[in-house]
């Protein structure tokens, strides 16, 4: 598309990547409609096909332009931005989208609760309207990045007299509110990648409500579908755990046994067919064929990450008996692949839980893709306050 090339050239001629401040460059890129090209004009995009983004990214990367730190602001870019675009009003889009893209605002997600993980619609965190302000009380968990986030997307219960899905509302929370308390949650790996977030009398202006009161489930579902697309992405061959193990195999003949080779090759094939299915899914999305198939990709990703990271320990048992570091660390850029094999093995255990457990993903595929009948749900149609919890 020549217009895109012109826009890229124009951006680069006004903002030299070598001398422009990163946030300033990204802001200018947003204003030029080159942030998310499929977003509308004035909202960081040009209203063109999503498939054009790759070309823009490549052109800018070739010119040495800074890229947004997707790893650091994955919730903001991958989930909050598309949700704001779909359900936010003009004022909210105006206030938030640009600052997400420039990473001036890092976002986190206040969804899961100790009593509502897979059954997300059972959240008990309460929001009640006091004049023009919502007052929020409750506890959230598994909040990655909460310790350095400026904003959060929140699902809270605004009506417990209706069935669980109907009584939810979606908000944007200012994490600097004095009622927000963030505590690190140390994990199996020793790292504290996640947090518990305690909300006590947190004040949210009504202008930060996303979608209508009671529409929170619909908005949250859209957010989660974006999450699964983000988790399922990754186009390079050997990009995940298989790359680490294959690399080890090539460098170190001492790990090579016939049994391990058979296993490694089988996983290599499985990883490759998943990559190809991901490519095909993206091509379908670009061709305008939507679908929840990305849930299936997440299943594959989790299984492979767990099995292959386990195989890695068996390949080098002496090394596998050791661990790199149990010190509690708080990284800003969590990585499944960073650090040693023991870390990778332990961290991968979360892949089948976070972002929807594999069991929930299988239900999603079975019901929404294959059209199988819904599971038996005893809480259906019952007011939330009467559901046993």
């Amino acid at each position, binding site marked *: 598309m020549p217009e895109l090339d012109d826009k890229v050239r124009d951006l680069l001629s006004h903002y030299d990547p070598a001398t422009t401040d990163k946030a300033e460059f990204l802001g200018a890129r947003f204003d030029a409609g080159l942030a998310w090209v499929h977003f509308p004009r004035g909202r960081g995009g040009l209203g063109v096909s999503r498939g054009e983004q790759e070309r823009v990214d490549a052109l800018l990367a070739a010119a040495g332009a800074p890229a947004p730190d997707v790893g650091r602001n994955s919730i903001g870019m991958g989930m909050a931005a598309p949700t704001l675009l779909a359900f936010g009003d003009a004022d909210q889009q105006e206030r938030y989208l640009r600052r997400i893209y420039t990473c001036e605002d890092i976002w986190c997600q206040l969804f899961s609760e100790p009593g509502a993980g897979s059954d997300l619609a059972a959240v008990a965190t309460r929001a009640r309207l006091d004049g023009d302000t919502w007052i929020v009380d409750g506890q959230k968990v598994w909040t990655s990045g909460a310790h350095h986030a400026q904003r959060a997307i929140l699902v809270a219960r605004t009506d417990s007299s209706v069935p669980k899905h109907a009584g939810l509302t979606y908000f944007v929370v200012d994490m600097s509110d004095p009622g927000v308390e963030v505590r690190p949650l140390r994990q199996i790996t020793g790292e504290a990648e996640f947090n518990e977030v305690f909300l006590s009398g947190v004040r949210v202006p009504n202008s930060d409500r996303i979608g209508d009161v009671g529409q929170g489930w619909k908005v949250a579902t859209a957010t989660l579908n974006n999450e699964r697309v983000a988790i399922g992405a990754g186009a390079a061959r050997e990009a995940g755990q298989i790359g680490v193990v294959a690399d080890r195999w090539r460098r170190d003949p001492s790990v090579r046994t016939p049994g391990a080779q058979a296993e490694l090759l089988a996983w290599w*094939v499985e990883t490759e067919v998943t990559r190809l299915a991901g490519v095909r899914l993206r091509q379908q999305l670009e061709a305008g064929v939507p679908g929840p198939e990305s849930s299936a990709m997440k299943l594959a990703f989790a299984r492979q990450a767990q099995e292959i990271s386990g195989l890695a320990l068996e390949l080098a048992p002496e090394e596998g008996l050791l661990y790199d570091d149990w010190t509690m660390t708080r990284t800003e850029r969590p990585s499944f692949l960073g650090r040693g094999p023991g870390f990778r093995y332990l961290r991968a255990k979360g892949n089948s839980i976070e972002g929807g457990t594999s069991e929930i993903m299988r239900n999603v595929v079975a019901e929404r893709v294959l059209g199988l009948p819904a599971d038996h749900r005893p809480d259906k149609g019952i007011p939330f306050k009467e559901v046993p919890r």
Partner: protein
Amino acid sequence: MTDLLYSDVEEALRDSVRSTLDRFIDDDFVSRIYDDPDTDTSPLRRALSDQVGLAGLLIPEELGGSGAGPREAATVLEELGRTVAPVPFLTSAVIATTCLLRVGDRGILSELAEGRATAALLVPWTARRGAWPTGESVIEPVAGAMEADYFLLPVDSGDGTVSLNLLRRVDVDVEQLTSLDMSRPLARVAVRAEGHPLASGDAAVEAVDAALAAGTALMASEQVGLARECLQRTVEYTRTRVQFARPIGSFQSIKHRLADLYLQVVQAQAAARHAAASLAEDDDEARIAQAVAGSWCSDIAVRAAEEALQLHGGIAMTWEHWVHTRLKRAKSDQLALGTPDAHRTDLAPLVDLTA
């Protein structure tokens, strides 16, 4: 990245193959072949070749074919796999035709394009690129031989040179074997004459390898068609079959198996598309694609048929049920043109994971 979707041309071709198949065969038709191997399948073959032009799909237009490519052939094979159609498309129109195209034979290709004759590559159905015998006087089990008019025989000339010889029906004795999959009959073929050489040396080796590579790459699509059919029909069944006062498809133990199978079929489809799309290239990437598709799609077709059987329960163990013809084809396909293990072994040096 190659396009892994289907073009409008492919979808149109799929529709015409599908409507022809639906007019001529049903599950019982395939089942009957097991009781009576002499069941006349020629009306189906003629319809597919006269009305849809399948016999000459890969043959250039100047020789009377349609000049289509591997992607179109792959789409056809999905439909043939869906119905376990008893036609020699894979053996004659893909494998033998690829071989003849490589050696540049024109006369026979014209005959094949018109659907007046079919051909078979005279190697065991387990052969794969780089692993096929030469110089045997009795070859078995050979696929596509029962109805073949021409046979392409790799011959070891004694000094290590391979030649590819053309034999006619009168030059061989063909004896049908009782095969696990009677919808693709297998035969013992005894060679009684030398035939005449089509190519020798590297040209002959390359032609046979290209033919077997095409067979591997495109059989993956047959397996995808079969697996999808098993998945779809099983989903339909579990939606309606009631036990314990609920459709069994509402039980998570059933749903989760079908969700896993769906994922594997989606993966198989992408792998088969990639193998078909890259078949025209003859490089490492194409060979990786073949090994990946050859191993994955083989396993998933079997898995889909086995899951279909288990989830249908006792009814699927009966002769009347559609599952048995699919299971027999799927298991046979898994052993044909290289087992999954053999494909993964071939993959190792291509992706630098040697022992």
